[in-house]
């Protein structure tokens, strides 16, 4: 166990160098950047504004609408621009992970738009996107009960690691790679989002969730610091 070496030499519970900045899109009501090593996500929040199309309006409360997009230049093999099966799924998952914290009761019939752009991808893009979106929503002055912090946990062969990068995602030795994306609501430490791609035992999944809980605390601290110093880039 102790001899396990990660491709980039990190400790098993270490994230890649993280960076965060709030207020990077001038036109938006709120915006933020979040970076995990080679993964950079930008989130811009517009709204609350009138919901179009009108048939999607919810007369009881406001709607949160997320759009995740990976730019065609974000990976070395150019990806086809435009919505895909994958990006639609991640948009929806991001929406669900943020819904427990936003309070849109006063915005009946309105929508808060969150646009997430991945400008550079090196795995864990959805986690970076959720982190950026949570900061951007806060900066946009949306009433929220808390912040959401997200991290990916990987299982390489039998070893659990924090914050998976592309080389680890493609791990082929032994049992191969399992990628678990987790989002936590900070104060009550509850999961707001979990996704799993691969194989894992129930015991090890519990271990992974615990590992994720510890790792998101570091993410939260960075998000907090970035929000307290708007316009400044903070790193950890």
């Amino acid at each position: 166990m102790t001899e396990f070496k990660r491709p980039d030499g990190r400790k098993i519970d270490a994230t890649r160098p993280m960076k965060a900045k709030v207020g990077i899109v001038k036109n938006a009501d709120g915006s933020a950047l979040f970076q995990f090593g080679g993964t950079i996500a930008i989130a811009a929040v517009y709204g609350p504004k009138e919901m179009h199309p009108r048939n999607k309006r919810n007369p009881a409360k406001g709607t949160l609408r997320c759009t995740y997009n990976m730019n065609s230049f974000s990976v070395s093999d150019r990806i086809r621009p435009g919505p895909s099966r994958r990006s639609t799924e991640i948009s929806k998952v991001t929406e669900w992970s943020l819904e427990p914290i936003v309070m849109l009761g006063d915005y009946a019939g309105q929508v808060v738009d969150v646009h997430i752009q991945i400008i550079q991808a090196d795995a864990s893009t959805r986690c970076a996107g959720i982190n950026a979106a949570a900061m951007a929503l806060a900066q946009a002055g949306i009433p929220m009960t808390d912040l959401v912090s997200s991290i990916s946990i990987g299982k390489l062969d039998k070893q659990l690691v924090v914050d998976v990068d592309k080389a680890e995602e493609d791990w082929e030795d032994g049992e191969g790679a399992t990628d678990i994306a987790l989002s936590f609501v900070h104060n009550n430490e509850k999961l707001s989002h979990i996704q799993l791609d691969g194989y894992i035992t129930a015991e090890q999944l519990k271990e992974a969730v615990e590992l994720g809980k510890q790792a998101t605390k570091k993410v939260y601290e960075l998000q907090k610091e970035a929000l307290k110093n708007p316009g400044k880039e903070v790193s950890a």
Partner: protein
Amino acid sequence: MADKEERKIVIPGETIVSGDEYLPGEGTEKNGQDIIALKYGLAEEQNKLIKLIPLSGKFSPRRGNVVIGKVEELTFNGWVIDIGTPERAFLSLMEVPRFVNKDALEEVMAVGDIAVLKIWSINKRGIDLSLKARGLGKIGEGLIVEVNPNKVPRIIGKEGSMIKLIKDETGCNITVGQNGLVWIKGEKVEDELLAKKAILFIEENSFVSGLTEEVTQWFGKNNGKGNTAEDKE
């Protein structure tokens, strides 16, 4: 938080203070002993009441607010006006203090015209505006400056002290809409531009305590000299 003047930035979900003696005010919530922020903004304490002043976000309309808006659309019985809210703002014919020919609404205000209005009521259907008060009406000429709606209280100052200072220094007539639009009307364009610069200076430095003094100093530096600099540009 013992010092009353001290303000700090808080983030949603953060515990501002804890203790039974504190009361939750606007933008905060009480959870057990803790006062928790529900928005991103500056936390302020006044007589054990914790208030949260938002730093960003859209204009949230209140009854009685004076706003500046642009005519978006004419309907058969009034005007739809954009005041920067997600809700629809409507000025009814009945709320104009003069006779209006129903077939010629554009004679009073056409699409694209800008007016100073008052929020008369807010209901589920939207916002109702009125022109029936002093100082309201269509804007003829002058300069419109757009600022962050959350900085409007800073521009007005305590009991209007800041806006009075700008008015005295520049000799301009200034109307501040709560939605972040400011109308400046002066004798000369130079005066209007100076007032605009002063307002943008306040918006940028809204964190500074003792801002009124700061602005007085700023005027000392920029008055007269500022005008010539403007000419060179």
